[in-house]
């Protein structure tokens, strides 16, 4: 699972919130499963405009603006569409991701200036998302089955879960710890430890609002504690259940962006 880093805000189902009262008895796996639903599956679909500010260790900043569409499809599977507006040279660049929980994700890329659509082979999802400190995995969420989960602490307001990869060779971290709000089940912070046990990466949900009944992260940040780089996402125009259809998550719509991404 991942944290509130989801590009598309985060949300929890009303139904889920009802369960909070008996949360004390929940197992780590159950908490994580709920948090995953809240963070990545709010509504049937959703949309947001994102302003991403990447501040490098030396204080220089780069800004990227994009729209993101998300549709929950069958089971836990989802589809994402990311459409860039700024900076000027990447205007209309687009990504398409089909997240397959039981297998590899499918990814496509559209580079308008090269008049080129390319499929990206399934591979490591822990690669930087357009040069930011976010990873592709942060956008679509990490598969819950890739880690074992352990409830290490329960505070008054949060569950603290330690996640250890089942296949340590596949990732660069030894483990990561997630702080999940008890009331909303929204993950608020995650810290990644390297092989030496030092924290090298922190993901935080900085601002949360209720939108259409879903607790939604409106500002999130990733800090690379090694290089000093930090990326902050601010979300605007967040909307759920706008009636997205499967059809727009196709290569055809990469070349000709759907009207849903228009401001």
């Amino acid at each position: 699972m991942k944290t509130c880093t989801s590009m598309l805000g985060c949300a929890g189902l009303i139904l889920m919130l009802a369960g909070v009262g008996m949360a004390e008895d929940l197992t780590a796996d159950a908490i994580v499963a709920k948090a995953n639903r809240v963070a990545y599956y709010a509504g049937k679909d959703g949309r947001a405009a994102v302003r991403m500010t990447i501040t490098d260790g030396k204080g220089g900043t780069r800004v990227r603006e994009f729209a993101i569409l998300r549709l929950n499809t069958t089971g836990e599977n989802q589809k994402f569409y990311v459409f860039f507006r700024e900076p000027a040279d990447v205007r209309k660049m687009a990504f398409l991701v089909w997240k397959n929980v039981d297998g590899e994700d499918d990814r496509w890329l559209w580079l308008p200036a090269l008049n080129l659509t390319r499929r990206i082979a399934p591979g490591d999802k822990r690669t930087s998302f357009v040069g930011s400190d976010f990873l592709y995995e942060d956008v679509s969420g990490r598969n819950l089955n890739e880690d074992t989960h352990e409830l290490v602490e329960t505070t008054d307001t949060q569950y603290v879960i330690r996640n250890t990869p089942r296949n340590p060779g596949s990732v660069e971290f030894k483990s990561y710890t997630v702080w999940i709000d008890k009331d909303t089940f929204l993950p608020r912070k995650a810290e990644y430890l390297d092989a030496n046990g030092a924290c090298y990466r922190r993901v935080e949900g900085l601002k949360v609002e209720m939108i259409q009944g879903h607790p939604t992260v409106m500002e999130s940040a990733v800090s690379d504690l090694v290089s000093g780089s930090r990326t902050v996402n601010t979300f605007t125009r967040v909307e759920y259940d706008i009636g997205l259809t499967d059809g727009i998550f196709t290569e055809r719509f990469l070349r000709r962006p759907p009207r849903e991404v228009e401001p």
Partner: protein
Amino acid sequence: MKLTLTNFSLRHPWLVLIVVLLSTVWALFQFPKVTFDNDPENMLAEDEGVRVYHHRIKEAFSLYDFVVVGIVNEKHPDGVFNVGTLGRIDRLTRDLLSLHRSEDGKPAVVRPGDGAGPNRIQSMDLGPTGWWGQMLGRAFSHDPNNLFDAEGRSVIIGHELIGPGVVDNIKQADQGSLRIEFLMEHPPRTPAEARIIRDDAMSNPLYAGTLVSEDEKAICLYIPIVTKTYSYNVAELVRALTRDWTTEDRVYITGLPVAEDTFGVEMLVQMATSAPLAGLAIFLLMWFFFKRVSLIIAPMLVAIISVICTMGLLIGLGYDVHIMSSMIAIFLMPIAVADSVHILSEFFDAYHRFRDKAETVRHVIRHLFKPMLYTSLTTIAGFASLGTTPIPPVQVFGLHVAFGVALAWVLTMTLIPAYIMLAVRTRMLDAMQDCPVKPGECAVRSSWLNRTLESLGDVSYRRWRVIMALSLLVVALSITGIVRIRVNDNPVKWFTAGHSIRVADTVLNAHFGGTYTAYLTLEPAVVQVPDCHEQAAIMEREVKVRFGAIFPQATERFTTALRALEQQYRTMWSSDPNRCFVELVETAGQIDEEALASWNAMAETINYLDPESLTAAGLLEAVNRVAGVNAVDREILSGRLKSLTALTGESLQNAVLAVCDEYTGRSFREFVLDMRAELSAPLFKQPDMLRYVERLQEYLLSQPVVGKVSSSVDALKKAAYELNFVSIPAYAKPEERAVLDARNRASFAVPDTASAVGQVFTQLEGMKRKDALFHMVTRDYQRLNLWVQLKSGDNRDMESVVQAMNSFLAANPPPVALNCGWAGLTYLNVVWQEKMVTGMLYSLASSFVIVLVMMTVLFRSALFGLLAMIPLTVTILLIYGLIGWAGKDYDMPVAILSALTLGLSVDFAIHFLERAREETRRAGQWRAAVRQMFKEPAMAISRNAITVSVGFLPLLLAPLVPYRTVGFFLATIMAVSWLATLFLLPALLTAFQRWAFPQTGDTDVKTGESGDGSQPVGVKMEKGIIQ
């Protein structure tokens, strides 16, 4: 006045001893505070322009000093690309990345457990095992296990490590998809997998020749470290981690930081061995000459105390011990003993006449005071002149040696008398008197030398014309040699040929593009975005090209609006191009609204149709339902649709959308937005500029010494190639294949628009290894950094590249005026070398003048002053002539020797001329004096030359070339100036005797000991003659 110091010491020997002792103890107490500085970069002052620039560039591009580890396998048929070697390289990479401090403070790495077992921590101790190594380490506070910063973090910057397991690779994968992963995502399991890694690496211009050698026999890991002072320890760590590797894989460690740091560490060892060895050599030589330990203890004490106090002062003043100052002890030792040897030698000679220690000492000092003062002063002047060089460590070195020489002189004047009063027993002296063999002993022992000297004297006098002619010839030859001198240095060549650093350097530079990196940074001379007026002009031109023919009216309207906006904004002082755009986009949008609204509406409807079982009829029906579409456009579409009725489903949909694109693509608004991207693109996203960089790179690569040039342009071309790559289907006909091949090859290039460049770069920014691109270009793409790899670290090679670059720039002006700057250690060395050469010339010239003035004052004669300068001038010319003829590089140690030569070699001339005057006055004419001159005085000079030369000889055993150079050259300098003094001076005096020794009125030819000292000396001389 001459005897003030000495009389005081004779009266209060205990006080002198206590003062000296206290000073020495004070100096010793400074020693624990010592700090070492192995960094040749510090040859430049901290605020030196080029050094500041170097650090600014390192900061801007996140560049680090690298320890270069080369793994070479020449035995395996696949070279390094075999399962075993790649596995070991992967293991080493993981080890280095997991380096951390274990609980006992030792370095430790994390290794995977056996099978599915948990990881295990492997701790190690890199400290020396022998007692000598441990002791040295403690003395110099060097801890090989120190691989961590103050917070305990590894000094290896893991996320910046460069190695096959951690660098990105873009490659084609199945079904036309693109794969982004590390070059060696996993260590290979089969030879076939290993060969895939090889092919991937070879096809990436950033890796072939840098990370992997083009002959496939070697792979390099580049280990970035926080500061280069850790490089020796990191090298030791790598050696420890690879100790158990098979002999097939040979591991070589190199790079300037390692070379420099290793030099520093070995320098300390040299300091601890060479200086004592020099002391021992001098001790043995004196023992050979004088045979009495009690006699030679005193000069040794003077030498040791001078060294201790000088080093104590240096440390106490807070200076680091640098490569130069580590040689202080070695320089001081022979110089410091010289004076006291003179005194003691004379003391034992004269004692029998006075039979009183104090009186004998007074006599001797009176006699030797002036020559000793002047020889010391000239030596001091020679070293102190180094203080005028612009190189801080050389200044510190020069001034401290000057201090040491001064101190040695003071000690000779005070400690030696005190020592004689306290430690030399009268009984022993009296006993010696009965057996006055001391000077004779050595005269007998070296009687062959005596005879040789005498016959030489004869030759110099009678054949003075030949000698002068020969000298002139030597001078002429020397000058032609000096013209040939090659100014060059290379810290790697400071190691002897067999040293592991030299070997690694040779091996790796044979396999790779070069291990010496210099950075060439390009930035716009003036950062300027075209203003509103310029942008308008460009847009007007472009819009006519694109739309002039198809939409003449709309184009006219657009240009009118453009001109109006331009008029409106050009007068405003804040002509903000962005505001021009915003308004222009609106105007363009209005034009589009009229021309393209129908097409946009139809295209959108078609786009949203469900392709499932879509037919041309169904599509047309959907289009007809779209509201607000004008009839003409609808008619065009349905007309075009007629030729597409054979298609159904998604292919129909795409074909019709392609038709729509022809029209929707004629958007003025899109045009404006595209133009904005082009016009606002930073310099190093502009295709013209990038192609210029490409040419510059090709040109640099054509320089023989340049092995490799890498830049963001290489990364861009590679990514553009992989993105555009179309795999050739197996069924393709040969001509189709050729077309596709050519197409693919053509895409290995800089894309045509700034947007295309920007979009490819965006892919590179988002690789697995984040920010790797930004070592070659800044994040704002306004500055570009070329990595120039040289096969040689010779300064002259670096200089030739700089010159080549300048001539290229002059002949090929870039599209935008550029500022170009060099950085990198290889380049820094060039700069401090230049300073060294000019600084040394200046210091040589100034000390020449100072010594000339001193000589004129000493001899109260301009002629004698000039004569005194001649042997050393010939010596310096000959030495540097030899360097030129021998083809030895004029490097740091050679440069420093020039100033020293002067101070040391004038000593012989002082003694000789002083004695020559004295003897001539006594004998009445020069002709008679010559014979005397080649007895005792020549003997003393020869003995002195031998002592100093031998004192420097242990340096020849050092494994570091600068030490050997210093040893060899000082010995040569002594020999040459000895010869020049004994041959040339008598010849010159013979030639100029009329002026040098006027027959009448010698009142103005007063020498130091005239009057009070002539009698005893005369006695001694006679004794010498008798013998």
